[in-house]
């Protein structure tokens, strides 16, 4: 009874104050130090086993091609973003002291060292922390798109929470053409996916349309979020609500890229 009471008190405190305490960070640091070599050994063992069965070259080739596709997709999106917004940004540069997103960020590659596969949430620990330049609220992506953000950071590790796991809203944009694009708001749907709505009631969107971050809020512009998997009309708000299939396969994460924008430093 006493332990149940203590745990309930901890839970209430935790819900009221989601940020990790210094004690929790210490515990995470110790666990991460133990988990890191285990995960590394497991990864080496797995890659070695794949090599033995002759799949290693295929796996490497597949990874290289996946990376190349992701690079090309990013280039296409960059071009779309550039075309649509170049003129607007040019006029705003002087007035708002605007700095292009590409120039205002640096990236840190990192491996995943722990994750609870039995949990419904996609929360994991990466092997880069304050000493590598990772900061709280830094954006985490992989070659497929947006994963989430760093929620806590220790000297040698960072705790990442995915975009699908929170009620926190973030804005996205759907590009139909150079001149036609629509804004919307998305958040986690509690089922491992994303849900959202369009700000324009007349938005001409279709199943399969790709969503990218708009650049307003935490996430820099142009990161791939996912695709529209369902569209419905909300009779109360008169807006289109959508289900979003995340671009990232959260079941197969091994390495990630942490993007630290200058405003976080």
């Amino acid at each position, binding site marked *: 009874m006493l*332990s*149940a009471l203590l*745990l*309930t008190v*901890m*839970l209430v*405190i*935790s*819900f009221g104050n*989601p940020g*990790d305490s210094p004690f*929790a960070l210490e*515990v*995470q640091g110790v*666990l*991460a130090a*133990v*988990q890191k070599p*285990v*995960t*590394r*050994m*497991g*990864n080496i063992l*797995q890659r070695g086993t794949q090599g033995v069965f002759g799949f290693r070259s295929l796996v490497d080739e597949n990874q290289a091609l996946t990376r190349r596709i992701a690079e090309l997709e990013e280039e296409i999106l960059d071009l779309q973003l550039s075309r649509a917004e170049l003129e607007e940004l040019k006029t705003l540069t002087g007035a708002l002291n605007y700095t292009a997103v590409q120039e205002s960020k640096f990236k840190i590659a990192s491996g*995943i*060292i*722990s*994750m*609870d*596969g*039995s*949990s*419904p*949430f996609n*929360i*994991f*620990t990466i092997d880069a922390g304050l000493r590598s330049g990772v900061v709280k609220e830094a954006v985490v992506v992989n070659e497929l798109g947006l994963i989430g953000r760093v929620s806590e950071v220790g000297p040698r590790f960072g*705790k990442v*929470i995915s975009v699908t*796991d*929170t*009620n926190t809203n973030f804005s996205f944009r759907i590009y139909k053409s150079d001149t036609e694009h629509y804004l919307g708001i998305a*958040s*986690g*749907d*509690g*089922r*491992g996916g994303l849900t959202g709505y369009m700000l324009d009631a007349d938005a001409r969107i279709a199943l399969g349309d790709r969503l990218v971050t708009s650049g307003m809020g935490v996430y820099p512009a142009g990161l791939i979020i996912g695709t529209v998997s369902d569209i419905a009309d909300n009779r109360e708000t008169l807006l289109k609500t959508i289900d979003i299939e995340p671009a990232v396969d*959260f*079941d*197969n*994460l*091994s390495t990630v890229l942490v993007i630290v924008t200058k405003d976080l430093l």
Partner: protein
Amino acid sequence: MKRMRVSHIIVAYGMAVLLQTSWLSTYPLVGVTANFVLCALVLLRAVSSHPAVYGGAVLCGLLIDLSLGLYVGVSALAYLSVCAVLHVVSDSLNPHNILTSVATVLWATVWYEVVYWLILFLFGSPYHGAYLAARLPVLMLANGVTTGVVKGMLR
């Protein structure tokens, strides 16, 4: 019922936490990996009624919450609830039968997941009941197979 050393219980739970949160969990099958701590709890309770069996599970839940949880205490409370039920029913179960252990872990999985979801639901977390229903069969399968295999190896 055999007497079990506390050190053995600590080692068993230590391995369970490492398996649950390290390399194996970064390569899940069909989106989930087994809840190794829950499997360890069921297997250990079958051979020992030492308080450390219950305490270890709750502590593991707390560690997992601290390192990878959205909120601290959810897993720990869910494990504690499983411990409470196990404490009542375990003495009437055959500790040597694999099928009994597998059946125990199956209902323990359902109990744990429902309590976990209920706690999050009460506090307004977005974890949806339909998502729980979709994950439950796979989790039961993973936990059942893990428990059966480990029990078979230990016999």
